[in-house]
Each structure stands twice: as C-alpha cells, then as structure tokens.
C-alpha cells in the first residue's frame, strides 16, 4: 500500500493563537528557550541585514517569518544528530550548536573555520539541494555503524525541483536511511512563486512517490513543526525509515540584501502573512499561559541583543583573514604546486 497523498495540514495553534491540537510536553523553561531562539533568529537576521547595508557583511538572506520552522526542525534533535541546510537555515544551525561566530565569519568573507564538531552540521550549503544526498549518506553511515542518531536535511521549495532532491529521496527510501527531509516552503524561490515551481498540489506528495510518508505542516506554528519533526525523527531512529515534511511558511523579507521583492510580489501578501507571524503567535501563547511576562520578554530581548552585539564585536576584532590559509585547506598536505604558489604570493605581497 502506498503512503497517502496527504491534504491535512498539521496545526496545533491557529494563527489567532487558539490551541486546536496537542501541545508538545515541554517545561516552561524549555518553552521560553524555544521562544528565545525565535527572537534571537529574527534579531540576528535584522542585524545582519543592517550590517550588510553598512558594508560590514556580504550579501545576506534574512530568515524573517521562518523562525518557527527553523527552530522547530532543529530543537527536537539530539546533539549527535546531524543537520544540513542552506543559507536560510542559519537559525536552525544556531539551535543545533553552531557558534554565531561561524555564521558571521562566513558572511564576512572569512574562512569558515568556526563550525564546531559537536554541532554536527555540514557547512551552510550554497548549491541548492546538494546537501540532501550528503545527509542520506550520513544516515546510511549511522545505520551501518549501528548508531542511534538521525540526519535531517533541509532545503527550500525551489530546491525541490533539482535532480539531487529527488535522487536523495529515492536513495533514502531504498536504503531505509534514518533521514528526515524538511522543505521550508516559504512560497518563493527568489521571484518564482511556488505555483510555478511544480504542478503538484503539495511538495509533500513527493514522499509517497519515493516510498516514504509525506507530511504537511503549518510552518509558522512552532508546536506543529516541533511535533511532526519529533514524530518523524523518532520513527527514523526506530529504524522505520525516512520521511518528508513540507512546512508551509512565508519569507517576510527580501530573498537577499541584493533582492527587491516589490518587483515581483504584491504588498498584500505581506499583510496577509504578517498576521500569521510565528513569533507573535507563540508569544501570545506564552503570555496567555503566564509563562512569560511583558517584563521577561523585554529582558529576553535585551539579552539577545547583547549576545549578538558581543558576537559582532568579537568578529570585528578579528585580525584580517590570512590569505595563506586558503592554500592550506585544499588538501591534507600542500601539493608542490600549492607550495610554490603560496610562496610566490607571499613574496609578491612582501610577506616572506
């Protein structure tokens, strides 16, 4: 029997903040931590955009609007579970334990040598969808090694059109690999709307086509994302194979700091999706349940701001990138060619 073509959107909390499903069993502390991540993600994103405008960062992709999916897909993971995604997943990376410094160095144009081994994240992917076969491979290795971990591969709606997305799903199905695919369907691939990306009604329907379940989830509903990811991750951990999750969310900002979305999408979209803001929604819940007070919230925002500013200060206090380092990272040992080229540039730069 094939897995069904789902049309059910998992939701725990309506955009208005009404609980209509099962709230995951999380302590107040844990709930605030999740909220803090969302707040940090948006603040970080806003700050990076501002820094880019000042010429202090390279082209940056804001993640505003996608905080619930970003946090909800990473928070259920254990430390030794693996994660890989694109530029839009940096909040998931932070949640997973990648130092803020690693991300900032990347956008500052440094060698990205601050990923920590403990975070178990592959470097931020630029070539869309290519990280997904990697995660299937890691999942195959985990299975071979009898390890209880899983791998989570994330990409955008646009990336699902790539051959690698489909090849990865197919391999995952065949090898029953403990991998969970999460598509952050934010409605757009730069200027191309989801409706022009595929004629299928839902990307989640790609799951059954490759022998795995496909789930739809309200990507602006932290609880729903958290819950569906938990279920799929536990299912994979239990040896029951891969799953595909389509999280429906919206990119509130521009594609990158180089993009002008006014060229291609109506402002009314933003009004519409602004109402479903994942942070406001979750905050309403926390206020309602008296888990967070206005005052707590202010303190939390301040803390987050300080954390980000401190990271920026550390970053900007770094010595300039040593251009010799890039020669040393190509192979485990410098080839004779690289040795000669490195020596020559040092000579020409007067740095012998």
């Amino acid at each position, binding site marked *: 029997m094939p897995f069904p073509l789902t049309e059910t959107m998992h939701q725990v909390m309506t955009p208005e903040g009404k609980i209509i499903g099962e709230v995951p069993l999380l302590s107040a502390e844990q709930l605030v931590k999740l909220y803090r991540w969302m707040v940090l993600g948006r603040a970080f994103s806003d700050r990076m955009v501002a820094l880019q405008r000042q010429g202090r960062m*390279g*082209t940056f992709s804001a993640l505003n609007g996608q905080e619930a999916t970003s946090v909800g897909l990473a928070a259920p993971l254990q430390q030794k579970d693996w994660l890989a995604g694109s*530029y839009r997943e940096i909040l998931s990376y932070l949640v997973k334990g990648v130092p803020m410094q690693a991300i900032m160095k990347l956008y*500052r*144009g*440094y*060698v990205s040598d601050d990923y920590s081994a403990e975070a178990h994240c592959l470097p931020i992917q*630029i*070539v*869309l969808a290519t990280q997904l076969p990697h995660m299937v491979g890691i999942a195959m290795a985990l299975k071979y090694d009898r390890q209880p971990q899983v791998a989570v591969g994330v990409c955008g709606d*646009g*990336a699902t*059109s*790539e*051959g*690698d997305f489909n090849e990865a799903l197919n391999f995952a199905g065949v090898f029953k690999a403990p991998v969970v695919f999460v598509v952050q369907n934010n409605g757009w*691939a*730069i*200027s*191309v709307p989801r409706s*022009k*990306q*595929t004629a299928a009604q839902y990307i989640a329907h790609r799951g059954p086509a490759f022998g795995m379940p496909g789930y739809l989830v309200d990507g602006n509903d932290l609880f729903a994302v958290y819950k569906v990811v938990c279920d799929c991750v536990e299912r994979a951990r239990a040896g029951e194979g891969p799953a595909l999750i389509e999280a429906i969310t919206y990119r509130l900002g521009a594609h990158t700091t*180089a*993009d002008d979305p006014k*060229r*291609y999408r109506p402002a009314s979209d933003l009004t519409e999706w602004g109402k479903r803001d994942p942070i406001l929604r979750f905050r309403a819940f926390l206020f309602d349940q008296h888990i967070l007070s206005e005052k707590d919230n202010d303190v939390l925002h301040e803390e987050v701001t300080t954390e980000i500013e401190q990271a920026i200060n550390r970053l900007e206090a770094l010595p*300039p*990138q040593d*251009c010799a380092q*890039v*020669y040393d*990272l*190509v192979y485990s040992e410098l*080839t004779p*060619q*690289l040795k000669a*080229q*490195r020596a020559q*540039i040092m000579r*020409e*730069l007067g740095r012998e």
Partner: protein
Amino acid sequence: MPRWTMIEALNNALALELEHDRRVLIFGEDVGKNGGVFRVTEGLQNRFGEERVFDTPLAESAIIGTAIGIAVYGLRPIAEIQFAGFSLLAFNQIVSQAAHMRSRSGGLYTVPLVIRAVFGGNVRSHEMHSDNIEGLFMHTPGIKIVIPSNPYDAKGLLHAAIADPDPVLLLEHMRLYRSFRQEVPAEYYTVPIGKAVVVHEGSDVTVIAYGAMVAVALEAAKQLESSDEASVEVVELRTIAPMDEQTIADSVNKTGRAVVVHEAARTGGVGAEIVAVINQHCLYALLKPVERVTSPDTPFPIPTVEDLLIPTPGRVVNAIRRTLEA
C-alpha cells in the same frame, strides 16, 4: 550613440532578437518578472510576453535539457544559468548532449543554443558565484565559449552567438556588468566568434587575457609604458574555444615574450592551452618561459582575500618583468 553598461547592451541585444525573430525564446531562473538577478532581462517579459520570456523551475540540468529540445526543434533558445558555477549541475547536458547532438545524429540535428551565465571575482560574492568555469568546458569539442570584456563586444558577441548554428556558452563577468559605460550602437551588429583582437599594440612582450583581466593587463601595460620599462602588447581572446591561435602566434612571434592572465585557477586552465599554442607556433621566437598569472589552485578565493589572490596589475607587472630579465 547611447552609452551603455554591459547589462544595458545585453538587454538591448536580447530585445532586438526577440523583436526580429519569433524563434527566439529566453528562459531560466528569475528571468521573467524579476528581469534576472542582475536585470539583464529587465522589461523583456513585459514587452514580449510570458511565452517568449519565462521563468523555469529551479533545475539547471532541465533548463539546458529542455533548451536542447527546443533548439533541435528549430527555435532559438537563450537559456540563462543564474550563476555560471551552477552550470556544473547541467554539465552532462552541456557536454554529452548539447555538444554531441550534431555528431550523434550524423549532422541531422543541430543545437543552436545560447547559454548565458554570469561569473567573476572581485565582487565579494558567495561560494560558487564567482567561479570561472571556462576551463572546465574548453576540453569539450562541439561547444564554443565566449567571454566579452566590454559592453560593445558583449552585445555583438551575443548576436553572433544567437546566429551561430552550434551551442555557445556566453560568460558574462559580474564586475564588468556595471563598472563602466561605452558607446554601443542601438542597431544589430555582430562581433565575430573565434577571433581574438590586439587591444593594445606593443613590441617587447605580449600579454594574453580575456574578460575582466583585459583591463588588468592594460593597466599593467600602462604602468610599464609610463615608466618606459617595456612596450606591452595586449591580446584579448574574446573567444576561448575555438581559440584564435593565429593572433596569439603573430603577436608572440613579434615580441618573443608572453604572459597569460586569467582569473581561474592555474592548473589545467585556459592558460595551459595558451602556453601549448605558443609552444607550438612560437618556440623559436620565445626568449623566456611564458608566465601564467592566475588565481591559486584553490577553490575560488573567498571575499576577504580575493583582491589579493585574483591577478592584479601589480602581479602582471611582476610577471612581465620576469620575462624581461636578462
């Protein structure tokens, strides 16, 4: 005559083609409403409709694969790969399919396809966005590779590429897109594919370059000439494949010294082929080893160091001086 940036010149060429030949179609990621991420296709969908200028799903192999079908059918597709580095995802369609269709079909089918893609450094782009890929395609018989260095040539070469009955890869340098304007005729004209050009005459040494490195070579020439150190001839390739060996040979046989400059990594790059061409045609005239000034054999230099590691006028001057040493 209008003074246009390379983007404006290319946009004008595309508009002319769409206007005069209903077989011309333009497609790729974000080329429609958005007008391309660099605005090369700005306004074209509006003017010529969604049937002529359209966005595709995000899949480079299928962009080129469908373009091959469209070309075989008899239309004139112009497919955009958003950044040349992502053409690696279409590598098989370009190398084993577009390039081989004429041979495989015994000449029955041809692929009059133009693939446009932006690339190029010194713009602090992300990984893969700046990669110089011409060297990866140069070893593939059946395609032509063209890299303009200015708005005038860009327009003329694009027209020539569209008129060409074989697949042409037109690589547009990001830094040249908007860095300067030039007088460009608003009418149709072509710049021939397969012809290099001496952009600056000199007698002591030949510098061979293309794309953004032409300006770097010219700057180096200027420096050495203003200090009276050397008279430098600069040859611009314009077409990487098939290479204009004659123009290279004539110049190097005259000067006896040569420096090759490219932005791509050194090993196995276009520079190696140029050295081989010089070896073949100019060995007896050659007074010193040909120098290769290139980026290092690393992944494309990251933003913080690219201005140091991509060839600079200073490094070209150093190389020229090495060829002049006794």
